[in-house]
């Protein structure tokens, strides 16, 4: 992917400032306000005491007396910390498993070029397009038969079904950019394929691995339908499912706690994302562009 150069400024200087405001800054500001408002609202609600939440007189956009009560309730009166731990565990394990399996698969498809590797590459792409919402029913039956129902293993083993196709596809594209000559030199010098993979390809593919890893981690963190279907006990639930199924009690909505739960559950991916924006974007656009 080519980075934008200063050339992209193009002939912008021909535009007058008022015109730029109408055609560029104003629409952009509207976009940003709409896209960010729900987050602002999440933050506001989670620090707002209950009296202020239900008061129609007060200005809802601001907090008069901020409180940590919702976070306290969430962390000490619900199983939220346990859900957090489950989500971390499941996401980390399934991400690393998928990444390891994908490195081998992508290298084999892209560089070993065994018989039929082209067809397998296409099959991997098609597998990426299979949506979880048509797989969860038969998967539930399989998970049940394997005795994995209501365990973290159910999630750790099923998340790779969408992570491996994605990571393999992304890494295939990445491996393609590494010059063949490097490998050939090593092979002529008597390196084995294993040495070529671990000493030449992997060090050069680190940015690709980070992209795939970050993206895979957020995908598993955000996963919902499998976790909803395969898990029923509160102590093995993940954050998205726990918040939806356990924090909503009848008709009484604890909006403060719900928003605090949503905020805390979004923070880890948001923080990770903020550190690796470029890798994330190249992962996302790379998977689409191939």
């Amino acid at each position: 992917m080519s980075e934008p150069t200063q050339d992209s400024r193009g002939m912008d200087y021909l535009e007058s400032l008022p015109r730029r405001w109408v055609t560029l800054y104003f629409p952009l500001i509207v976009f940003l306000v709409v896209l960010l408002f729900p987050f602002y609202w999440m933050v506001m609600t989670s620090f707002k005491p209950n009296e202020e939440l239900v008061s129609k007189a007060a200005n809802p956009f601001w907090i008069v007396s901020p409180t940590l009560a919702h976070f306290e309730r969430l962390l000490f009166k619900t199983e939220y910390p346990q859900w957090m731990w489950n989500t971390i565990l499941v996401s980390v394990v399934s991400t690393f498993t998928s990444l390891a399996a994908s490195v081998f698969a992508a290298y084999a498809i892209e560089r070993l070029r065994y018989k039929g590797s082209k067809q397998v590459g296409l099959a991997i792409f098609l597998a990426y397009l299979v949506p979880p919402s048509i797989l969860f029913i038969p998967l539930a039956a399989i998970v049940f038969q394997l005795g994995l129902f209501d365990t973290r293993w159910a999630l750790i083993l099923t998340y790779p079904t969408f992570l491996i196709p994605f990571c393999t596809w992304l890494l295939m594209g990445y491996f393609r950019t590494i010059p063949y000559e490097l490998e050939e030199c090593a092979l002529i010098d008597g390196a084995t394929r294993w040495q070529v993979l671990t000493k030449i390809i992997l060090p050069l593919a680190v940015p690709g691995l980070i992209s795939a890893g970050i993206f895979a981690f957020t995908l598993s963190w955000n996963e919902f339908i499998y976790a909803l279907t395969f898990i029923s006990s509160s102590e093995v639930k993940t954050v998205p499912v726990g918040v939806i199924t356990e924090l909503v009690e009848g008709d009484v909505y604890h909006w403060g706690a719900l928003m605090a739960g949503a905020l805390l559950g979004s923070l880890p991916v948001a923080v990770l994302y903020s550190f690796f924006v470029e890798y994330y974007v190249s992962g996302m656009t790379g998977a689409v562009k191939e």
Partner: protein
Amino acid sequence: MSLSRYFNNRNTLGLLFMLPAAALLLVFLTYPLGLGTWLGFTDAKIGRSGEWVGLENFIYLFGDSVARLSLFNTLFYTIVASVIKFALGLWLALLLNKHLPFKAFLRAIVLLPFIVPTALSAIAFWWLYDSQFSVLSWTLVKMGVINRYIDFLGDPWLARLSTIAANIWRGVPFVAITLLAGLQTIAPSLYEAAALDGASEWQKFWHVTLPMLTPIIAVVMTFSVLFTFTDFQLIYVLTRGGPLNSTHLMATLSFQRAIPGGALGEGAALATAMVPFLLAAILFSYFGLQRRAWQQGGTDK
């Protein structure tokens, strides 16, 4: 020695390297895909393996007004949301492609709605759509536009539009950022050439930007359509299909019938009925990609 040579053979080693990925995908993707189709033709219930019943599930679903409504809802949801996501996403991409201060930062925060767990941002929308305490209603009332709080998720059509709005909110960043990546690959010289020929802004967009962007638009929109068509989380959190099943998508209905309802066969049949639509979307993308070869044939790289 001969053993290590054996392992250096590309076919053997290829097979070995493929093994972990292939095993996981065969057991948890290919097999369930087949099993799901098969279940669709059985009367399986939770805890009881089913008997082959032929097309019975499909015939039943075809006569079921809720299932037909869910098909309508899914198509409506997908088409309206995708068209708006495309229009707004392309617009945002064009804006972000201009010379701007803090460009990288802007691009980073634009993508936030896409990376945050959908189930969690959907709760925020649920709260924004609350019938008694919605801040949207509060603002409109204060501005004097309306005099009664809007029951966003209580009326069938309002609920449809509200869920679509939430879906658009989440999807626009994805479309915008991927299209932006496409825009950045268009050579500035093409615009300069067009400007020298006296092209207006609109002509530049119509005759340079759009044709150059077509292949990536095809792929991005296929993904967007696939994700929207099979959406589950947003509806499950916001409405669970209500009011009066007016927001039930095929995915949420198949969940409801199969998991809480226990009718695995019926749910699987509903899920299977989604496949032809998905295939159509993928084929559409395939022909979109075909045009790419044609386009590249016309231009030297």
